[in-house]
């Protein structure tokens, strides 16, 4: 069921423009907006929250909210740097919304959130005395306490020590399930997106380039632009697969087999080994086949070495199942 529908949303900020954005989020879904810094994903999230006067429609449960002010949209917002109110204690930060809107079971909600988020002992502390992780939990508690219909998270893990990211990702997923939330999470990190997302929208240069399930988007990019952004390697013309057309395909460097002997694969080429670099646990190997250069990754635990010396001939091969058409 479509819970939030963004239709033809446009917004200009100086030279930058969100251009004709369309996507929808289902109820109970963990939806990730994935894009590089400066791609417009935070601006898009802020537009959904109502901070920008946008063109187009934002339907929320079937009602157009694009003209409503932020205080009437029922969204919870957690910024990258948490944006806690320094003039208030942890408790007053969390319960801030209860001064302005009716919160049912106020005390129970506070107790439940404080318990779930491990904030019980911090409720009377000042904000300035908290660690980064504690601040993040307070910001999340503050957003959840207001009982939002949708939770908007802006790069919530980027200000967190990398050591704790995995546990926080796990926690975000648990929280999403426990409170039956609909969440939009903005990030530039593929790992975060692939772990958390039910569905992903790729945002580039102020446009949504692709929307789909996490598996689909991360494995089958619609075009070269998205493929390059997602870190796809070996983006090559389909002609070399003996197929017609001017399209391109990509093959995962991990799916390429190498051998001095002829290989048994759907596609096999003979080329020249250009470079072989030993990295911690794998080798990066570059092979040129005519004008085309392939890049392969061989795990050290699978094979110790580069198969051939630089300049020597080598066979490379891969199967149809590993080909992604762009």
């Amino acid at each position: 069921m479509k819970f939030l529908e963004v239709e033809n949303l446009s917004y200009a900020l100086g030279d930058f423009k969100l251009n004709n954005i369309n996507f929808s989020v289902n109820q109970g879904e963990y939806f990730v907006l994935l894009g590089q810094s400066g791609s417009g994903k935070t601006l898009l999230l802020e537009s959904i929250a109502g901070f920008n006067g946008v063109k187009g429609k934002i339907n929320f449960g079937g009602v157009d909210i694009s003209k409503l002010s932020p205080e009437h949209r029922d969204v919870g917002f957690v910024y990258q740097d948490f944006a806690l109110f320094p003039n208030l204690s942890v408790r007053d930060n969390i319960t801030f919304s209860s001064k302005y809107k009716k919160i049912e079971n106020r005390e129970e909600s506070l107790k439940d959130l404080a318990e779930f988020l491990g904030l019980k002992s911090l409720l009377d502390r000042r904000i300035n005395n908290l660690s980064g992780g504690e601040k993040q939990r307070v910001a999340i508690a503050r957003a959840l306490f207001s009982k939002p219909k949708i939770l908007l998270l802006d790069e919530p893990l980027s200000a967190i020590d990398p050591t704790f990211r995995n546990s926080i990702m796990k926690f975000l997923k648990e929280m999403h399930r426990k409170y039956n939330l609909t969440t939009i999470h903005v990030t530039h990190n593929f790992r975060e997106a692939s772990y958390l997302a039910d569905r992903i929208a790729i945002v580039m240069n102020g446009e949504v380039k692709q929307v789909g399930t996490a598996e689909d988007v991360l494995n089958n990019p619609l075009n070269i632009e998205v493929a390059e952004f997602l870190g796809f390697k070996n983006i090559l013309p389909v002609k070399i697969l003996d197929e017609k057309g001017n399209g391109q395909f990509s093959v995962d460097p991990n799916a390429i087999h190498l051998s001095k002997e002829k290989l048994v694969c759907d596609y096999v080429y003979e080329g020249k080994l250009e470079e072989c670099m030993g990295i911690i646990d794998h080798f990066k190997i570059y092979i040129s086949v005519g004008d085309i250069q392939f890049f392969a990754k061989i795990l050290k635990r699978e094979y110790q070495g580069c198969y051939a010396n630089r300049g020597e001939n080598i066979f490379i091969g891969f199967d149809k199942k590993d080909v992604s058409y762009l």
Partner: protein
Amino acid sequence: MKNWFIYLLSSLAIVILLFLSIPLLQMIFGSDINVLLDTLKQKDVRDSIWLTMRVSFMAMCFVLLTGLPLAYIISRHNFFGKSLVEALIDIPIMIPHTAAGIALLMVFGRGPVADFFESFGIKFVDAEPGIMIAMMFLSATYLINGAKEGFNKVDIKLEKVARTLGANPLQVFLKISIPNAKKDIINGCMMMWGRGLAEFGAVVIIVYHPMVAPVLIYDRFTSYGLAHSAPVAAIMIILSIFIFLSVRFINNRLN
């Protein structure tokens, strides 16, 4: 020898500190305490000090009410003519105070603006409102700029989040923006109030009587000499220092 740079800086800093403090210390400690107490017993001195404190405080309150919104608008919005508005706020501190007094006298002493206020029974020449506008005109800059700096330091994301939590723009302004800019706003208020207490040039053009303390000091100096004006000056300096140290202490405690 490796601290020579610190010694150089300290030596130069001491020169300016001595320059700033010696006249004040001379006024405070060079005065006979009995003379100061006798001066304080004089009604015209007490009235004049009270008038100065009170009117300067009222001027500060008026600018707090009108200048805070202006400071917030400048801090949060870009608009056509913003630089002009900012220049307009800064200009009064650059022009001679007597010239400012003449300009105010031309507007509030005669003509349609004066007539308009007079229809409500408000007179500016030789009246308290005249003192107030002179103080306001020449010291509002300190409060407005102080508040603007304070608002600039408040992350706009705090205000955005507060909106998502149900607060309307006025509630955000009152509960988030002002409390988090409080230190700079209070400092701006103190600066304005202090500057108002010291205002002489513009006030003396518009209002000679009732006399504010700086006018009384000038009047006694020209009429009776240093011996009669110095104790009043010393009392004003002691009172001002006491009040500002107290407010700054409270402000630091609050933060």
